[in-house]
């Protein structure tokens, strides 16, 4: 895939946004076209990451401002931890809004399964340790 123009600008912008302080993220709406007909954008004013094809619908990615209540996720995990270890110890779970969506052998599989069911959500994915692993880990 070759880039018609502007790819270097996009790379620099993405690099800047990845490394800068969150308050210094630059939000732009500009197009960069590749030879396969896909036009790429970066982040719009609303914080949405966007990749789109000029002949089709925009693909809106995750919002970098999307606020997930991590403390609520954590509280749910703490409350159900013993039960989860008993049921799923040694496996990986993916949960959305306190509901277990998938149980897999790897984080990637669990994440993909949950996102396929809830494409607009970011699942909480974690390996659930076995009881004996916890004892070893904390000795």
């Amino acid at each position: 895939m070759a880039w018609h123009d502007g790819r270097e600008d996009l790379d620099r912008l993405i690099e800047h946004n990845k490394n800068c302080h969150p308050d210094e993220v630059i939000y732009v709406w500009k197009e960069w076209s590749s030879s396969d007909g896909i036009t790429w954008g970066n982040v719009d004013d609303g914080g949405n990451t966007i990749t789109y094809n000029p002949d089709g619908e925009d693909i809106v990615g995750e919002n970098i401002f999307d606020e997930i209540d991590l403390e609520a996720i954590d509280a749910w995990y703490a409350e159900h931890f013993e039960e989860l270890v008993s049921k799923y110890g040694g496996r990986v779970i993916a949960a959305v809004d306190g509901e277990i969506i998938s149980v897999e052998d790897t984080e990637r599989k669990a994440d993909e399964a949950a996102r396929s069911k809830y494409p607009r959500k970011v699942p909480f994915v974690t390996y659930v340790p076995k009881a004996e692993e916890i004892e070893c880990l904390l000795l």
Partner: protein
Amino acid sequence: MSAPVIYNYKPLSKIKIPSIALGIFYDRKWARAEALVDTGATYSVFSSEVADTVGLKYQKGKKIPLINASGDKFYIYLNQVKVQIGKHVINAMLGFSDGLCPYNLLGRKDIFENFKICFDEKNSQILFYPFA
């Protein structure tokens, strides 16, 4: 100092695990994961699967050797990402590795420099006080 982010220990029988839910952002994608807060670790070490989830080619990062508690040498790859703790998003250098530990570990580098962290054993909580 701002209000703390409060996380609960994960209880299992008489054992309490100081782990927290956090977010990792790279390029255009978030991942939510769990990590054990490890005051003895200089670097954070996450499963390579977490890197895969956000599309990070982690092996392009800086490769450094570490030795675990058993004396085994292994390698991690340091990469710059954004980390969300509570509602606070910081830039952090995280290490990614493809094995050895079932738990993601949250070490001191970049994390403890952005938060004053209190282990409240009596109330089974970890409190993250943001410096900024």
